[in-house]
């Protein structure tokens, strides 16, 4: 994997409270990386350490193979959770201000801003004052200010908070588009659905520690661990007997519409999945056989409760 950002054994203690405990992770270039965890887990501290707002007690943050510097930080696009804009300034003027701070000249800034304003359908707002916008509207402006200088690394802290579903969806599409254009996106959230939808990889932080890391697909599959749901009728013998103890039932079976029965089963080994399907098919009228991949929400709750 081509790593853009590497966090090596980072720890941080505030007076009497360990905010991060030996956290490591690697973020691949051109991916969307989810930083998950319950409130107070240490996500914001980690982001502050990446941005050098806070320095770690020990450990390193490496960007493109070297320790991250203040100048690197100036190139990052960072959307903090607590976000604000100058209330009295006009939208366009303010966006140009932030773009210029990021090194764009006025003409380029205006041109790119106009493109973004069109894309997010907010061209009418150029001359409005921020104080006249709703929270969601201001968030859109803020999002543009964060990405306007086309940074290679973007950090979004809870980017969807305050958005209605339509605008959240619009933003998701834009984040995916940024990724497809080569940007790496780290985003911190406790909204599991958004992780499922857009993240390529993720780290779950709980109680200051990294408790789960990897690609989203892999984590879900591992957490799923060969749990299937079968729908059938007219089964002649018990499942364990049919499958030669290769599968066991989880919980009680349920009767569903059409005279069918629904049952969750666990198959101990990957190699046995095919045999189990064949055995079940031979001994009943099999309607469906489907792997159950747990939602990120399930994984999150189970991981946090030490059940994984």
């Amino acid at each position, binding site marked *: 994997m081509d790593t853009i950002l590497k966090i090596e054994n980072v720890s941080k203690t505030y007076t009497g409270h360990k905010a991060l405990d030996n956290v490591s992770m690697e973020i691949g270039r051109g991916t969307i990386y989810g930083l998950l965890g319950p409130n107070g887990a240490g996500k914001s501290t980690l982001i502050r350490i990446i941005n050098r707002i806070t320095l770690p007690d020990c450990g390193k943050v490496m960007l493109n193979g070297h320790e991250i510097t203040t100048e690197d930080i*100036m190139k990052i*696009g960072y959307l903090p959770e*607590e976000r*604000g804009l*100058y209330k009295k*300034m006009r939208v366009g003027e303010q966006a140009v*201000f932030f773009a*210029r701070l990021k090194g764009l000249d006025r003409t380029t800034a205006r041109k790119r801003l106009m493109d973004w304003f069109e894309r997010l359908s907010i061209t009418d707002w150029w001359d409005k004052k921020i104080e006249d916008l709703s929270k969601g509207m201001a968030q859109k402006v803020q999002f543009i200010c964060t990405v306007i200088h086309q940074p290679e690394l973007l950090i979004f802290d809870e980017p969807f908070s305050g958005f209605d579903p339509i605008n959240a969806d619009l933003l998701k599409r834009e984040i995916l588009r940024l990724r497809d254009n080569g940007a790496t996106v780290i985003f911190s959230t406790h909204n599991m659905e958004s992780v499922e939808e857009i993240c390529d990889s993720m780290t779950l932080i709980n109680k200051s520690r990294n408790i789960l890391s990897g690609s989203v697909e892999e984590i879900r599959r591992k957490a799923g661990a060969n749990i299937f749901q079968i729908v059938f009728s007219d089964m002649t013998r018990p499942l364990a007997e049919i499958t030669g103890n290769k599968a066991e039932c989880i919980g009680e079976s349920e009767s569903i519409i059409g005279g069918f029965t629904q049952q969750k089963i666990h198959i101990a080994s990957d190699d046995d999945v095919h045999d189990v399907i064949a055995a079940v098919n031979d001994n009943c009228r099999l309607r469906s056989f489907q792997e159950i991949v747990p939602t990120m929400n399930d994984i999150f709750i189970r991981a946090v409760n030490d059940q994984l």
Partner: protein
Amino acid sequence: MSRIGIIISREFKERVQKKSFIIMTILTPVLMIALGAAPTLMMLHSTGDAKQIVVVDDTEGAFVGRALKSGSLVSFQLLENMTRQEAIVAYSDEDKAFGILWVGRDFVRHPDNVKLITNTSSSVMIEEEISGQLSDILKVARLHEYNIDNIEQILADADVKVSLATMKNDGSGDDGNMEQMSSDIATMISLVFGMMLYMFIIIYGQQVLASVIEEKQSRVLDVMVTSCTPFEMMMGKILGIAAVAAVQVAIWCVLISFASQFLIPMIPMEEMENPAFASTISTTFGDIFYILKLFAMLLLYIIGGFLLYASLFAAAGSAVDVNQDAQQFNTIIMLPIILGLIVMMSVFNDPNSPMALWFSIIPFTSPIVMMARIPFDIPFWQIAVSLTTLYASFILSTWIAARIYRIGIFMHGKKPSWKDLGSWLRTK
């Protein structure tokens, strides 16, 4: 443009584009003049109608009562055939008279034998008016006892006002061409400029404080943090506001220079009461180089003084979340400014006293005190030392403030203690 330049430009534009800036820049000189003239105008107009005072005069021929002159403040009415007791009873009502003035029979020999009995509370102005008139009458009465001929004429001749022309000795030996100066005018300029410094430091310093707190509250700082360093943020703000102050001073300089060139020559000096004073006003305010020199100094001290205090105000603002929490730090920062103002008031008595000298060199009070001394034409080396110390202290205070600011802006919640600020200062 550098990042700091972009921030300066934003801060500057935000302020000068406000209508209030334009209005205040034009109105402030007018307000200051009005403020200066207000006490006199209030004295003149606050008294209302003349107070009616009835006079019971027991002197021979009631000459005191006859000599008292009614004016805009007090109007006298002599009661010819009434004793003091009768008058007190007859005029015991405020509607009938403000009071009763009784003058004793032997007033010329015993000047304390006089009483003002009022029906309502008296005022210093009325008492001064009456005692002033009585003193004059007494003086004339006593001189008459010497039986000198033509005494009225002699008194009129003796009543002169000296119009002293003060020159600054330039060693040329030609006092006709020496620079004319006046302590009155110097005091006036000194007061105006000293007050200006005080107001600038406080008004613009408070703007820095409020603006940092607002940025912290609105979380703009959190957004800015990956766009520029905390030091750039702080200096950008301070220098941006300093530029606004500089523009304001420059506008005033232009307005006053214009007035000096076109309005001062229009004043009919020869018709004024004190020709020497009028002529000094004309030479002082008509001298464009003198005005430019004063404004150059004003600019240097306003910028220096502002920069010194602004960084401290910025540090105080960064440490707190709301305005109320800033009060404690604000008070401490304001103390030396107020001390400067108090010392300034003593400068007029002796601009070269050791106290005036030292406080005009110590950086925290120097802008106000030195600006008040400059109109008294003090040695240049003192100004040079004072400015050098001021600008050196600004570098030091900015360094200290920046160390607090870089941590303060990210701290939310509890108001930090002095100990916390100390630990931020030491944090690497």
